[in-house]
């Protein structure tokens, strides 16, 4: 497995130790895997430790999925992971960005009944 794939897989499975090791080895935090996605885009959304590690090392929170236009903030909001939503915003994720169907992160949180995320995003 090439390193970019390994990196994305470590983020997607929430393997904090492995993500940290690869970062220490100097792998580019914004490099895409063979599916064209960065680790932040595919990470286990509920894993705030991985999210923090990637963001602190310069992961771009505003990269959008080339087939749906969704950003990591859209995904975290849709899944209802408030801690990750807060972290992404702390690292300058754009809350007004729209996916290809013109939905903002708050719209996805609303659609899926994650009221805590809706209230938080409204309060900003």
């Amino acid at each position: 497995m090439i390193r970019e794939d390994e990196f994305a897989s470590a983020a997607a499975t929430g393997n904090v130790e492995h993500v940290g090791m690869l970062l220490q080895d100097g792998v580019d935090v914004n490099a895409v895997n063979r599916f064209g996605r960065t680790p932040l885009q595919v990470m286990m959304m509920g894993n705030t430790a991985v999210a923090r590690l990637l963001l602190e090392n310069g992961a771009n929170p505003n990269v959008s999925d080339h087939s749906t236009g969704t950003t990591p903030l859209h995904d975290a909001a849709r899944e209802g992971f408030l801690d990750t939503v807060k972290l992404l915003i702390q690292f300058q994720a754009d809350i007004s960005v729209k996916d290809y169907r013109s939905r903002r992160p708050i719209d996805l949180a609303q659609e899926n009944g994650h009221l805590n995320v809706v209230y938080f995003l409204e309060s900003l």
Partner: protein
Amino acid sequence: MAQDAAVQYEPVAEIGGGAYGTVYKARDRQSGQFVALKSVRVQTDQDGLPLSTVREVALLKRLEQFDHPNVVKLMDVCATLRTDHETKVTLVFEHVDQDLKTYLDKAPSPGLPASQIQDLMQQLMCGLAFLHSNCIIHRDLKPENILVTSRGQVKLADFGLARIYSCHMALTPVVVTLWYRAPEVLLQSTYATPVDIWSTGCIFAEMFRRKPLFCGESEVDQLGKIFEVIGLPTEEDWPTDVTLSQRNFSPFSNRPITDFVPEISHQGADLLLEMLTFDPLRRISALNALDHLYFQEG
């Protein structure tokens, strides 16, 4: 079966490999949601898919009708003809972006409150009782395939695949964790649904300890670590169909389980010991565990 998985589901990362084939995190282009794609290559002839595969897939699809809250949904099954002799069967499962390992790791010190552990255990047992009543043995329960939604709903994943895979694939040697494995599996004796109860017992203890209960490095080492906690089984309890002898292990002084799982309640400790019973026939079942007094504590 639908014909083309590649159009509707786009893989974004590999999230599992090894003996069972590759697992991908993918995006459903229609809903925008993440799913888990699990593929297996099956040898086919003029009659199409082997009956055993069709049967196993049918069993998994039948489970869907119950819409059980504590198992992941099987959303779709796709078959793609690869060559004249090989078909790729792809199972599309609901994907939850948090596992129990992550959930336990991120709980603030000193760990999960007792009421939350009780709730997680109850959901886990409900999922397990459902699988077992449908004659499905999970075989590989561990914190990585017990998923927890952002609302705290537990969903078991990766069940029912072992038989589909083992029928049709040369098992590639991969490192699989021994830590949640039941003694009868480690001893290569016959096994059934009680193996999942054992794994769940290990996970129950881990919720309190915030680290695994038995961290063996080989089968024998794993058994040694188990006996250190539950005591060495008697020779009468030792299975007769195994090569490893009971005399290979030294007897340990029986220490109370609360030495190893300090924060657990009296009823919790009682249930835990019922789950970590050496003899699989005397180990508590998922249904009986749900009736245990531990779940009435509050």
